[in-house]
């Protein structure tokens, strides 16, 4: 069996296609999703084009206040019409205009109008801008009322206390203080591409059969069961190595926290048994390499969608979430995120580990049942 394992590891090491599917592709996906989510995760990503026609101290103060929250792009005072055309063409979604007389109105105690032009088709994007502007407007109102109360003889503290909201919202994270989209993307892409090992496995078994190598091996002292295990075990090691590399990439490049490493290792081991076990079963039941390719993609991509690898499960419709429970991908992702984001330990994830092992052992059982027929078909 040792000879089989060493030979198979050498072959996997020389297989460029596997390297592409198992490592290069997931790294590319992690980088791609990582950059997208990293950008959308920062406050500076909300951009607001602003035209300051007043050019006063008050208008500059307002812009300064907004700049702390949004990315403000100031445009020339006479470019309003040109910018409006651009909104109509869909080049951007909103523009703020501070009209002439803004400061004067404030000094006179009159309402100082500012105009927010927005694309009605992009309400999702303009809603945060509107909320930020309303928040700034509220702050101006509070300042004005504080001034009035202080003018009527109250101290600043008394005035602020009088204007304070009776409700205070305290943000408490239910999971951890560091959950971000990378915690979704790295395990998600890792789990998704683990299942691509099935293509490599099926290809290897069919090659062995087609080239006559399997028949020749049968004339040696290698027993059928040793052959099966000897072919399987290197793929388990390959998937473990794949997971280690992808998590290390996430850790060193994106600062992904790994949580309880022992628990993480247990999930990786059971995931590799699940992925390769299913691959083993698949290799012995499909009629050819083409069918294996199609079924692998179905299992990998379908499982990724249903199992919540592309987006958190709770964002999926309830029916999809329920179906997802029947995929190994769901249990792998669920337990990995528990460890990474919720600080789970082995005692919290052993159920998922058992389910993953059951998937793997089911695949192995199918392979064992089909092995005699597979060997017979190789002889003819």
């Amino acid at each position, binding site marked *: 069996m*040792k*000879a*089989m394992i*060493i*030979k198979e590891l*050498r*072959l996997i090491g*020389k*297989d460029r296609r596997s390297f592409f599917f198992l490592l290069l592709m997931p790294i590319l996906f992690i980088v791609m999703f990582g950059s997208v989510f990293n950008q959308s995760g920062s406050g500076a990503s909300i951009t607001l084009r602003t035209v300051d026609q007043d050019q006063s101290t008050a208008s500059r103060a307002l812009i300064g206040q907004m700049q702390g929250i949004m990315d403000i792009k100031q445009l020339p005072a006479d470019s309003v019409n040109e910018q409006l055309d651009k909104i109509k063409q869909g080049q951007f979604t909103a523009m703020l205009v501070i009209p002439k007389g803004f400061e004067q109105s404030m000094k006179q105690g009159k309402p100082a109008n500012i105009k927010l032009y927005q694309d009605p088709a992009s309400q999702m994007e303009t809603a945060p801008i509107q909320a930020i502007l309303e928040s700034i407007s509220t702050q101006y109102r509070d300042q004005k009322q504080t001034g009035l109360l202080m003018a009527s003889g109250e101290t600043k503290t008394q005035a602020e206390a009088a204007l304070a909201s009776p409700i205070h919202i305290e943000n408490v994270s239910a999971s951890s203080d560091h959950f971000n989209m990378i915690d979704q993307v790295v395990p998600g892409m890792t789990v998704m591409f683990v299942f691509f090992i099935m293509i490599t496995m099926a290809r290897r078994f069919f090659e062995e059969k087609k*080239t*006559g*190598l399997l*028949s*020749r*091996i*049968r*004339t*040696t*002292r*290698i027993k059928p069961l040793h052959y099966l295990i000897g072919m399987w075990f290197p793929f388990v090691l390959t998937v473990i190595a794949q997971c280690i590399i992808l998590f290390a990439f996430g850790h060193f490049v994106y600062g992904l926290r790994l949580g309880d490493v022992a628990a993480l290792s247990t999930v990786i081991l059971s995931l590799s048994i699940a992925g390769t076990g299913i691959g083993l079963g698949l290799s012995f039941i499909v009629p050819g390499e083409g069918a294996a390719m199609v079924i692998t993609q179905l299992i990998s991509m379908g499982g990724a969608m249903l199992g919540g690898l592309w987006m958190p499960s709770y964002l999926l419709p309830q029916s999809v979430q329920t179906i997802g429970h029947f995929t190994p991908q769901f249990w792998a992702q669920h337990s990995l995120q528990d460890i990474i984001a919720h600080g789970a330990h082995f005692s919290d994830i052993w159920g998922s580990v058992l389910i993953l092992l059951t998937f793997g052992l089911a695949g192995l059982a199918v392979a064992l049942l089909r092995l005699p027929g597979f060997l017979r078909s190789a*002889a*003819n």
Partner: protein
Amino acid sequence: MAQVLIHPQETYTPEAANNGYMLEVSGLKKTYAKKQALENVTFALKPGTSFGFLGPNGAGKSTTMKILTGIVKADSGSAKLFGKDMMQEPDAVSKYIGYVPQEITLYEKLSAYDNLEFFGEAYGVRGKELKKRIQEVLVRTGLLERSKDIVSTFSGGMKRRINIAAALLHRPKLLILDEPTVGIDPQSRNHIFEMIRDLNREGVTIIYSTHYMEEVEALCDEVAIMDQGSIKAMGPLGQLLEQYGQKSIYLEVPGLTEPPQDSDVNAYHKEGSGWLLETERSSAVMQRLLRLASQHAWDVKQLEVVRPSLESVFLKVTGTALRD
């Protein structure tokens, strides 16, 4: 169809088991999807024999070899190696057998050395002994210098040599080669022939399957002619040629437009610039031809007894030419 069994001193029968025979095969039958692939194949080999299976594609040669190596199960019949049942005790006999399949069954992405290491370990050879034997077979194949090269970079002939080498690492007593020279250059073919002759001289019993008659003539001292799943004739090469081969005399005389008539000549054929006279009494015919030549003062360019060919044996035994 009845078998013609010929053996030098004795005809093998299953009852004569263990009578100095190393391999005893009796009544092998195999059917694939209602097609009879083997029909009552029986033969026996003494140690050190170089035994050729000659027959066209589909004759049953590969099926016989696959049964002997345990790849295919026979429907009925038995095969014993050193008295051990090859079907019931495959593990006990596999260490004695080296099998070289018709296809080049090597890992093309691995080096020659890595391939040999794998097959050596698969046959149960380990450690320093394996290293030593790999060195030995690499020297034997003439590929020592290329041992670290990837097999896919090898020529067809080099791959064939490594294909054979992979079956030698456990020093088998019986080497089964299934058409091991298909599609290779003459130089590599000669190298392989030399390897096989050396192994046979060292005491390895050879079973060599081919559809090239010249290979059987060059390598084998005993031959079985197979066709349509059964052995049609079997025995030492010389005896088969003597019994079934068409004896003839070749005569070349410039200007001889008609062949000389002789009552002992069965048929005349124009061949090249001369005549081929088929006869069972070559000595008598030769003497008469010499007298004729002397009487007519022929300028004889060539007059010789032509050795019977395996092709004529095959034609006589099966009723068809091997190349048909």
